[in-house]
């Protein structure tokens, strides 16, 4: 193998699995260390800069970081990264003075954001401090978009939304709430320098099966119903409720039903339990509230009597692997099953909908009726119009919307300054030794043996009585500290300096996870098979040194390195050093515009 080029920022970035997996590339280990240190304000600000909604995301994020977490590869469960973020948000002091402000002198450019959800608010936050005049339109009376309308209050209290949305609206935005945009053409005629479409994926999919029309009064589209609950237009549901669908919206629907009078609530899903789209922890939370999840049942008809819903009939299916190796669901032939109920909630998907974008304005749409959007710049084929969040590439989640918003803001800023939107700014990267003394590092390298701590919950009896009572109590400071100590500090990198190495094997002998091997070089797949411990996780890189004195090379498998620094402590010549890799994404308005 060729020697690894550690000068290339992606190499060490990938080693920080959580940060690499995060769409916004939040420096996770850095803020976790600050939480352990009790520096909640600093931890919050790192998050705020990167992901804009720390308190909201600390309760609701889809956490792509956690399945990526290295701790999950050396023991069963990853660090509770998401809930640690909440610890920073819950325990911070007043951070108002640390927030940016809009400059008194504007730059003369006007930007319109359609929708006041996470993508639009991120664009607004990034652009307003640069002097842009940002106008945000939303049909709802309050900002937040789906954060406010679709996430139940028992998961996310309204005060948290008000606070974090308020930090952004406080930047001198022009908030045009209660104004739904019905025509992009008309908006463009108002002469904005750029328009950002962050209108989400607002249409819940319907289920056209027999009985749908007749029983319509008791069949509800999940996201609309959740929104009605959030805005207090709906405050009760029947005693027996069936939720159709296996995603996170289904989980929110069933748990909300339990709080609005639903006593016998079930989730019924076409697919198997494992294949459900809902996150594992959301399924767990639903089951914890006494909600059964029934699988492999396909809805066939709504039964009704006298215009009133009486239940749903299902066909039983089973997974079968066909000739091409594809998995399909085929009927088992068993008799259909009927479940009685008073109400049905449909949570079988949602989609984008752009009836308000006139086709004649020249924007290109694909054959599914979605606007053609560049995946890197978020620019549509109409140069001054940008998309982001669910509106860009279909339903994802808040953290993706934030990441899109940052990128779109960079594009809008470049576009408004007459520069090429394809010239993306490079991230800011630093790599610095953490050595403080012979056995002293600037980070706590003693690896905690604790297993993942559970977030304390409110008593179930109390929680199920009120839809506005938050279920999770969050980690307190002590638990937050203990959980933070589980973080392996993957951003503190093992950096190898080949000329200093005397090949004494001290690092090989001390490494608790057998990462390091000195051996003859070879082709990657062959090399992977003959290391101290075979390197079977192919997605994890091998760090290969140039040839050493004995003509061997040092090979380090990054896979399960604990970043404990013992290799560096044991190295007699300082050939190993622990160096902190810090990568910050460059946001709109940076002076460094070349990559």
């Amino acid at each position: 193998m060729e020697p690894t080029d550690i000068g290339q920022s992606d190499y060490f970035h990938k080693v920080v699995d959580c940060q690499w997996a995060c769409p916004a590339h939040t420096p996770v280990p850095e803020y976790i260390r600050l939480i352990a240190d009790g520096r909640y304000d600093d931890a919050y600000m790192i998050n705020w800069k990167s992901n804009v909604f720390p308190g909201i995301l600390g309760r609701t994020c889809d956490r792509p970081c956690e399945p990526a977490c290295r701790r999950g590869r050396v023991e069963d469960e990853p660090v509770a990264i998401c809930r640690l973020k909440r610890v920073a948000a819950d325990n911070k002091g007043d951070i108002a003075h640390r927030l940016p402000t809009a400059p008194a002198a504007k730059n003369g450019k006007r930007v319109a954001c359609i929708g006041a959800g996470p993508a639009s608010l991120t664009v607004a936050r990034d652009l307003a401090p640069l002097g842009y005049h940002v106008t945000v339109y939303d049909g709802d009376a309050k900002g937040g978009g789906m954060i406010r309308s679709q996430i139940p209050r028992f998961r996310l209290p309204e005060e948290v939304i008000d606070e974090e949305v308020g930090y952004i609206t406080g930047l001198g935005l022009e908030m045009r709430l209660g104004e739904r945009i019905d025509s992009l053409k008309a908006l463009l005629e108002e002469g904005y320098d750029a328009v950002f479409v962050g209108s989400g994926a607002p249409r819940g999919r319907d289920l056209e099966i027999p009985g749908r029309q007749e029983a319509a009064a008791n069949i509800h589209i999940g996201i609309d119903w959740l929104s009605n609950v959030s805005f207090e237009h709906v405050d009760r549901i029947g005693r027996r409720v069936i939720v159709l669908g296996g995603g996170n919206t289904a989980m929110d629907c069933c748990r909300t039903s339990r709080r609005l009078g639903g006593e016998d609530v079930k989730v019924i899903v076409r697919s198997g339990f494992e294949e459900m789209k809902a996150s594992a922890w959301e399924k767990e939370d639903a089951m914890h509230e006494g909600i059964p999840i029934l699988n492999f049942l396909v809805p066939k008809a709504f039964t009704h009597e006298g215009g009133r819903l009486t239940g749903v009939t299902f066909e039983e299916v089973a997974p079968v692997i066909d000739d091409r190796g594809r998995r399909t669901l085929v009927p088992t032939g068993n008799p259909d099953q009927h479940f009685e109920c008073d109400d049905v909630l449909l949570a079988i998907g949602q989609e984008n909908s752009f009836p308000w974008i006139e086709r004649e304005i020249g924007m290109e749409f694909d054959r599914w009726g979605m606007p053609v959007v560049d995946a890197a710049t978020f620019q549509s084929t109409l140069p001054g119009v940008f998309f982001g969040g669910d509106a860009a590439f279909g339903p994802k989640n808040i953290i993706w919307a934030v990441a899109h918003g940052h990128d779109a803001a960079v594009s809008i800023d470049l576009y408004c300054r007459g520069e090429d939107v394809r010239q993306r700014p490079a991230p800011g990267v630093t790599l610095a030794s953490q050595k403080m003394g012979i056995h002293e590092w600037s980070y706590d390298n003693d690896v905690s043996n604790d297993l993942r701590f559970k977030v304390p919950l409110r008593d179930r009896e109390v929680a199920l009585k009120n839809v506005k009572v938050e279920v999770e109590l969050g980690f307190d400071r002590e638990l937050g500290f203990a959980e933070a100590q589980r973080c392996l500090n993957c951003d503190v990198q093992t950096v190898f300096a080949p000329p200093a190495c005397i090949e004494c094997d001290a690092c090989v002998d001390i490494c608790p996870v057998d990462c390091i091997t000195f051996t003859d070089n070879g082709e990657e797949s062959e090399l992977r098979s003959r290391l101290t411990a075979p390197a079977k996780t192919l997605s994890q890189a091998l760090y290969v040194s140039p040839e050493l004195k004995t003509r061997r090379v040092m090979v380090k498998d990054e896979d399960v390195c604990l970043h404990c620094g013992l290799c560096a402590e044991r190295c007699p010549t300082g050939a190993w050093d622990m160096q902190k890799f810090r990568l910050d994404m460059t946001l709109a308005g940076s002076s460094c515009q070349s990559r």
Partner: protein
Amino acid sequence: MTFLAKPKLHHPGLPTNALGFNRRDYEGAISTLCAGCGHDSISAGIIQACFELDLPPHRIAKLSGIGCSSKTPAYFLGSSHGFNSVHGRMPSVLTGANLANRDLIYLGVSGDGDSASIGFGQFAHSIRRSVNMTYVVENNGVYGLTKGQFSATSDKGSKSKKGVANTDQAIDLVSVALQLGASFVARSFSGDKHQLIPILKAALTHQGSAFIDVISPCVAFNNHPGSTKSFDYVRAHNEAVNSLDLILERDEIVADYQPGTVELVTQHDGSVLKLRKLAEHYDPSDRLSAMTYLQQRQAAGEIVTGVLYVDPEAGDLHEHLDTTATPLNQLGDAALVPGAAALAAINASLR
């Protein structure tokens, strides 16, 4: 030196042996030796060897004297019996322990100071008596704990860290062990575990006195140009006579070699030493020619390593003394204290 305990987390794919232990189960406390010390590599080799041999940790006794090397038993086999004796007195303590309980596996760990200076006599007599043990000398040619004076195994002409040449003749422990009748003699290098681990395994399965001289560079005081025990010097002058695979009785012997290139030596316990010849005409079963060869190569400035001599049929001290086959701790009071009449009978037989 490290202050932190080694994290308990280990590689998820770490294999287990026949006893269900993984390699980490054979570790001891964290080493407090200097960073990069060759001794730590030998400890790692012992851990690996015991793991691969499926040795039950509670059946091993590790004994040592005083010095950097004699500290190392604290850093491996944390669940085994240990005895840290007076300086240079490990061989007599080991001999006594062996006589009392012949069922344990005895591992003596010593250094060049402990075995070639203050304990030279003890070393010589334990070898001479064929005590069934593995005697490892971690040989760095320097008094590391007292900051770098020449030891008795420093080669004549080897330079100290300050550049002063040694004027005394070195004691070659391997030659002494051969002369005194050790039935397994080997030399290896801490920086070459591929060679060291099979040798350790062969020695641990050997019935009789097995002696291994392991050259182990002292990174703090004896790893500079001019030293003959530095990593660079040993790597440049290392001449292995053979490479060893130890085949346990449970394993199948695969004939994957050209006739005449490999020698198979079956030991007392049924294990087979598969010695692949590297030096032409070297015969590890011939004590006299081994001694001659060593002297010749040494004169040429080479460090001869590998299995230098092995006698698979050697007897041990218990056989020579015709002792009871039962460890003393398993004998009843009647056997251990036979009474005045028995003593009188012995005395009478000696009159």
